[in-house]
């Protein structure tokens, strides 16, 4: 049964026709000593295709099981391996809790990638031993299903750094492939993800 108000269809065929906003929540994964958090198009209600032109991952209170480890991400471009070729750049700003002059913004070449298939570091050295230390931020992925263009991504996260710093990393890059990206995996460099959530949203364009 359709619901029609003043000639406008509000709901029909099991779906709401009226606009409910342009940020659409797709999936939330919650870590609990998890080896990885992985979003695959078509699995477990995940949508990561041409339904939306832009996807946003929100990383919320990611707490590593092992202190001072990095959080990483990689992308699947066909097959089952997360090994898309990537080129990226990274810079960061940081400030030490002791305010001892450790405050700067710098290029961080160690997390740049040059046509690499390995994981992209999101933020490093997370946690200094306390239960309240974690990472939060966001990752934007543009047109993952395009078979014409490379796939750009932008990341910004802030973490409680193991050297007692607030550390914010800015990463921009692209998967240098024209195959569709249909999976995104988040993983620690070593050890598991102890706790935290990653939420996937799609951004409507019409």
């Amino acid at each position, binding site marked *: 049964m359709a619901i029609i108000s*003043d000639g406008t269809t509000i709901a029909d065929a099991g779906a709401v026709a009226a606009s409910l906003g342009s940020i659409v929540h797709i999936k939330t994964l919650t870590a609990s000593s998890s080896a990885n958090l992985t979003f695959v198009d078509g699995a477990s209600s995940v949508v990561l295709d041409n339904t939306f032109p832009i996807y946003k991952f929100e990383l919320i209170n990611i707490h590593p099981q092992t202190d001072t480890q990095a959080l990483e991400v990689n992308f699947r471009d066909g097959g089952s391996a997360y090994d898309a070729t990537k080129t*990226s750049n*990274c810079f960061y700003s940081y400030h030490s809790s002791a305010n001892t002059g450790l405050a700067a913004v710098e290029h961080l070449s160690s997390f740049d990638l040059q046509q690499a298939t390995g994981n992209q570091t999101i933020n490093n050295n997370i946690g200094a031993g306390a239960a309240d230390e974690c990472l939060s931020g966001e990752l934007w992925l543009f047109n993952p299903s395009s078979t014409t263009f490379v796939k750009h991504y932008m990341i910004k996260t802030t973490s409680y750094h193991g050297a007692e710093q607030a550390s914010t990393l800015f990463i921009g*890059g692209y998967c240098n492939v024209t195959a569709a990206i249909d999976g995104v995996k988040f993983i620690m460099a070593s050890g598991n993800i102890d706790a935290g959530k990653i939420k996937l949203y799609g951004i409507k364009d019409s």
Partner: protein
Amino acid sequence: MAVISNGTTVFDAGALGSGVPTGGLTHIKTLTATDDTATMVFTHGTSSVVFDGTYDSYIFKIHNIHPEQDGWFMNVDFSINGSDFDLTKLSNAFRAQQTESNSAQSLAYVTGADNANAAAVQPISFDSSNDADHAMNGELQIWQPASTTFVKHYTSRFQATGSSNFSADYYANGFINTTTAITTVKFLMAGADFDSGQISLYGVKG
């Protein structure tokens, strides 16, 4: 016909009731560039564009912009009347980059892409490539364009594939130094035209 639940109007007169949550981001308009598109222009009150005091801020999501020629900036400019694009801006710009060959990486201020109370366009993406699989993606946000009290701040971040095969993460931030309401936003390439791509305008609810 209205549907009212527990005293709350869910919808009436062909629209959702004001008490129904619809998310913080509302899609307003999408423009699509085709071959030889010189400009992409959003003007309040034209072609269903809303760009006034309806929302506290506006976000332009820009994806897979493919330029007609190599090596040009993508620019934005603003108008109070839809025809004169001569408003002074004070802004800063910086970018991080890394080449696919690892031959050059840096974080640097981009002199020449900032404005010092000049009426010039605002560059928002960097040295873009027109290789068939290259493109640029990002966003521009502008706050309270209809204010007649304050200058109009804008921030942008773009991730692009550079003309010599590099990843460029480009930031431009500043303000339009006028207390007159901004009604029009125009996107254009510094040289030649757009080849393809989309720009979507969203309103951000307060």
